[in-house]
């Protein structure tokens, strides 16, 4: 059974903005990368899944439940990192997490401590005085503290330095192994590439492509055959560039990065 199902979702904001006839599903234990430029409709889709917006046309279901009517039930097992995080500024991070623990009724099962240590965050500062990175870490902790089965992450690594970004990606890989279902929205390719099994590319509110990360890569691999003076040179060349040597010839590959693949789907419009 699909964990997350979006079926023919349409929300027209006018002037080409919104999402149009959007359908996709994420299986249990799958990590789905939702890739698209700003304003493509990623956040609008997520707002429907979160039960913030009511589907006017089409439907959204999580775990078989209607995302609008049964939103509070769905939230029990869901963790969410919003694209633009805003906390209760008057609190310290510690107070905020304590509030959430009570508010969500998480109790002693909270993974709060483990996560704070993992991200090296000391939350005992007024939230209003925190840096963007600290707020992001706090947002991640808040989203994962109740060990949810489904994760909806809207650009989760924005504001994190590269080290912390890798740490986050490693964490997501572990969570996936633990059977979590993940929907990760991003306009950053690496984040999605390293975490997800499937990628849906969204463009102007429509899905341009849904495929596995592997297939997307394969489709965009080019090979070159280079002839060198000696077999030794050809072998060395192949070794250095990760190719194969065939006598004096060496075959090398260039993998287009997802970024290039991405541009392939978006390029036209922007020029």
């Amino acid at each position, binding site marked *: 059974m699909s964990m997350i199902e979006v079926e023919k979702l349409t929300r027209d904001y006018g002037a080409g903005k919104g999402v149009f006839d959007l359908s996709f599903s994420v299986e249990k234990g799958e990590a789905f990368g939702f890739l698209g430029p700003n304003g493509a409709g990623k956040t609008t889709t997520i*707002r429907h899944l*979160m*039960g*913030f*917006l*009511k589907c006017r046309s089409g439907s959204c279901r999580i775990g078989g439940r209607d995302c609008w009517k049964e*939103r*509070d*039930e769905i*939230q*029990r097992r*869901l963790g*969410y990192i*919003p694209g*633009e*995080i*805003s*906390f*209760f*500024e*008057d609190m310290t991070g510690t107070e905020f997490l304590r*509030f*959430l623990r*009570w*508010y*969500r*009724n998480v109790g002693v099962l909270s993974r709060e401590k483990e996560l704070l240590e993992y991200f090296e965050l000391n939350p005992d500062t007024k939230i209003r005085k925190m840096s963007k990175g600290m707020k992001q870490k706090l947002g991640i902790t*808040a989203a994962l503290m109740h060990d949810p089965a489904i994760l909806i992450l809207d650009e989760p690594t924005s504001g994190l330095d590269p080290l912390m970004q890798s740490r986050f990606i490693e964490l997501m890989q572990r969570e996936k192994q633990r059977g979590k279902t993940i929907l990760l929205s991003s306009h950053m390719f690496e984040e999605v590439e390293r975490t997800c099994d499937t990628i849906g590319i969204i463009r102007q509110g429509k899905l341009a492509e849904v495929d596995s990360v592997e297939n997307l890569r394969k489709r965009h691999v080019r090979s070159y055959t280079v002839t060198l003076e000696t077999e030794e040179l050809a072998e060395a060349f192949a070794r250095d560039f990760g190719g194969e040597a065939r006598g004096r010839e060496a075959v090398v590959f260039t993998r287009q990065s997802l970024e290039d693949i991405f541009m392939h789907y978006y390029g036209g419009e922007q020029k």
Partner: protein
Amino acid sequence: MIQASLYRREIKGSLKLLIILGAVMTMYVSIIISMYDPEMAELLDSYVEMMPELMAAVGMTAGAQSLLEFMSSYLYGFILLIFPMLFSILRGNALICRYIEKGSMVYLTAAPVKRRTIAFTQAAVLMSGIVLLLAYTTGLEIGCARYYFPNELDIEKLIFLNLGLLSLQLFISGWCFLASCFFSDAKYSIGVGAGVPVLMYVLQMLANVGGKAEKAKYFTFFTLFQPDGIIAMENQALLGAGILLAGAVLLYIAAILVFSRRDLYI
């Protein structure tokens, strides 16, 4: 129906404003009550004679026959209307709309808590604030009256009067709360939440001045609150208070429904 930790947080968040308003009201109420001796009352009444329109506008009239009538004239036309109203406007906006505007509503809604429960909890916070403020006022009035003029105050009637005032203030807070639940932008939430009651109060002031402007009283809900009528236990005044209370209930129910069914762009 009430989410306890949210309620606790918001009551804590209301305390500062409650203390400030309580302090200002303490000052006014104690000063006004202390002025109810024949000489001072004469002085106040002379102001009324000097500038009858201005004083009448804020509900102040001369010739009170008892301490309660005196209070009704000098406290229940302005001070006890405006300060609790200020609480409703400021907190009403902060309890829902500010969370939506800032986006932190995410953390209230992305949790296994029904929207209905969130709205009901915030409504309860607003109502609790108003009740607390008026309960304090009642205690203060009784205390001041005891101190300055023992045995002069009809406490039973005072309590009726304040229940009437409570109906009015709950009605105003219900309106502010509805505006807060309806809009996503604090400037509209405050604009409509505060604008309508303030406009109505201005109409009430016009109506109080009398003459042709008296017709304005048909266009303001403040007309439904008649302090002198309640003290005299007139049916019409009691009915007015009842209408305000029923209106308050309807406004709060409407607000909770609006919040439960609306789209949130957070």
